[in-house]
């Protein structure tokens, strides 16, 4: 399983390095989302700073939709996913590999996006340990849930539109908890023991487990 996971993750990251979809397109898109939010919500100068963590996680959420759609699209071209079944690749390995590949891409994206938030919204950053930990687990949770749900949607002929529908409601706890955890981190009131962080950890663990358990059935079903 670990071996297969490494194989899949390496393949997906190689394809990303070659096509640069995340770097050249999803990342700029995330920035555009940041700008557009500012457009739509520009009421008074303080507002944006106040809701900055929420907007950051919204931008991450929309980017992660694109990211997981892309990871599934890779397997749908020329039915490569069926190939994985024929080759007897371990189901858990496929799941883990995809999660790792998505995680790596999203995490890098978030680092850059954070810079954007600081510059565009004039947010201050602080509470690093909590911030880092919450980002880590939130991203892990998003990746795990995203890969599972986009695979669920992939059988449909209209997967592009089904993924957001299925995934966004599921991911909204991450959105909420990520936002709150960041707010806590920024206000400096909380440490690693933050309850929102705990929620994020639970979410990540649950979705990793669910994915590991059910991914096989989704692939076979």
């Amino acid at each position, binding site marked *: 399983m670990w071996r297969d996971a490494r194989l899949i993750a390496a393949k997906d990251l190689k394809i990303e390095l070659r096509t640069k979809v995340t770097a050249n397109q999803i990342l*700029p898109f995330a920035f555009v989302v940041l*700008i557009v939010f500012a457009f739509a919500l520009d009421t008074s*100068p303080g507002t944006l700073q106040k809701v900055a963590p929420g907007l950051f996680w919204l931008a991450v959420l929309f980017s992660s939709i694109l990211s997981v759609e892309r990871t599934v699209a890779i397997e749908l071209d020329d039915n490569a996913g069926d190939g994985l079944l024929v080759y007897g690749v371990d189901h858990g390995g496929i799941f883990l590999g995809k999660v790792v590949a998505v995680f790596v891409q999203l995490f890098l994206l978030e680092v850059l996006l954070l810079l954007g938030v600081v510059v565009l919204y004039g947010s201050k950053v602080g509470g690093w340990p909590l911030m880092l930990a919450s980002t880590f687990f939130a991203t892990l949770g998003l990746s795990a849930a995203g890969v599972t749900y986009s695979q669920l949607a992939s059988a449909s002929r209209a997967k592009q539109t089904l993924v957001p529908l299925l995934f966004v409601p599921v991911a909204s706890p991450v959105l909420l908890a990520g936002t709150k955890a960041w707010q806590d981190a920024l206000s400096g009131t909380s440490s690693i023991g933050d309850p929102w962080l705990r929620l994020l950890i639970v979410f990540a663990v649950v979705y990793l487990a669910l994915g590991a358990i059910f991914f096989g059935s989704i692939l076979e079903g």
Partner: protein
Amino acid sequence: MESNGYRWTRKLVGSLSLILVAATVVLGLWITPPDVVQGQLVRLIYVHPPVAWVAYLAYGVTSIASVLYLWKRTRNIKWDLLAASSAEVGVVFTGLTLVTGSIWGKPAWGVWWTWDARLTTTALLFVLYLGYLALRSVPADSHQRAVRSAIAGLIAFIDVPIVHQSVVWWRTLHQSATVLNPSLSPKIHGEMAMTLLLGFISFTFVYAWMLMHRYEIASMQQQVLDAELEQMIQERQREPELEFQRVHVKDGNDQINQPSKV
């Protein structure tokens, strides 16, 4: 290869822009007086409006070159390269506008950034041309890329007049037209106006120099590509012989391996 004349011109433009920028710096930092209200900060006026203006100029050149490519009678891959080079320089100058504006904004308005109409439309301009460059960066047929990016570049240019007019159309925090105002009579005077004018000229020269440099690189890359293409054509034309040899050698039998009629 570009002609020697081109290279000499480029070097001349380069040296001139160096001298001009140096003069602007001297005038801007030491000769001109500080402002009554803004103090030393006012010196940014010799940089910030000129770089914004040069960004407009760059996108204007991109648009003209794009039209020339789209129009069948003047179609030439050089226009595409020019459009791309100019857009790249334009993105750099738009970035500089944003940066110098932000630096100015912090002391002047108390914030690095605010969602004022001028600022927002400028940010959009930046993103629009980033999109243009992203569209160019996806691997595609050179003609197809040229057509598509020309269209994207032309459409993006619509934002330029909007940025310029934004201070008029919306009530904004940002300075309204001081220099490039409708009556074309600058509202600042004396050596400040002179220095500002010099700033415009010197950054225009810097732009010209960067553009020439970028265009030369692009056209050299294109020449390499063209040469590679010629070579690829010849290689591909030889494919049948190679194919034949491969079969021929492997079989080690001269009798039954005659090439089909060529």
